[in-house]
């Protein structure tokens, strides 16, 4: 499974620092009931963000959080 198809709940479980990335990008994802359905691709489409940037921001945030 590509990173793009990971759902938001899995992302947040695996990389808790991603919370701040979702917040920074002004998404409603943290706390949303649809977390287990939305993939990063869906998030990028909904909020018109670049998928690649979103993933690299999550990776950066997680590296810093360690």
């Amino acid at each position: 499974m590509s990173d793009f198809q990971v759902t938001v709940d899995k992302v947040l479980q695996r990389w808790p620092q991603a919370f701040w990335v979702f917040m920074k990008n002004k998404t409603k994802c943290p706390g949303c009931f649809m977390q287990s359905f939305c993939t990063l691709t869906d998030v990028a489409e909904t909020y018109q963000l670049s998928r690649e940037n979103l993933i690299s921001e999550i990776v950066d945030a997680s590296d810093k959080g360690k």
Partner: protein
Amino acid sequence: MKIDPADLRRVSVFRDATDEDLTLFVQKGVLRSIEDGEFFFFQGDPAKYFYILVTGRAKLLQTNPAGQQVNLRTLTEWQIFGALGAVRENALYPATAQAMEPSTALAIESDFLKEMMQTRPDLSVNLMQLMTGYIMEMQERYRELATERVERRIALTILRLAGQIGKRVPDKGMTVELPLSRQDVAEASGTTIFTVSRVLADWERRGLVEAGRERVIIRNPHGLVQISEGLDPQLTDPNSDPL
């Protein structure tokens, strides 16, 4: 600053008044200039004067006992406000009038307007027109608030339940299916099946959901999230005053 009586014709209530009457109103009036953030009157004060905003901008706001403020209306030049004392005995201002920039208003005793209205039907009719306009506006807002509240509740219920028992429909984009009837949704959201049917039919038209006999399919989860947060673009008119 001096006011030309003819300017008062820009006030809706005075648009049919004679020059002599307008001169009288100006003579009886007192000009009050206040700074940004200062007040013309406070909620609960005796409504002895009515006001006509001559320059600047002001707002009418109400405060509840807990101190929360609600902006009722923004006032612009040549609008009349605080005139209920001309119609009601011993009236108190139901709202506070606060300037939003340096402002000047003409304050005239409400008793004088009351006296003039006895013999000048156009003043009464124009004031009634203004009042009925406010009533219609408030009814509209009340309806919007009531509908918005139930829509938010239903959206939140569907999203919450979808988070627990929903299944993503494969190859259909971001689509989630829920094995719920309208009755289930009504019970879970504390409303009636009629309301649920009406709201779902509206959402169906807008492409947000698809409602079957025993299932609800969410076609646009983000749209529902926006409704549940009170951010439904169809209910939010950017031109209306903030309530």
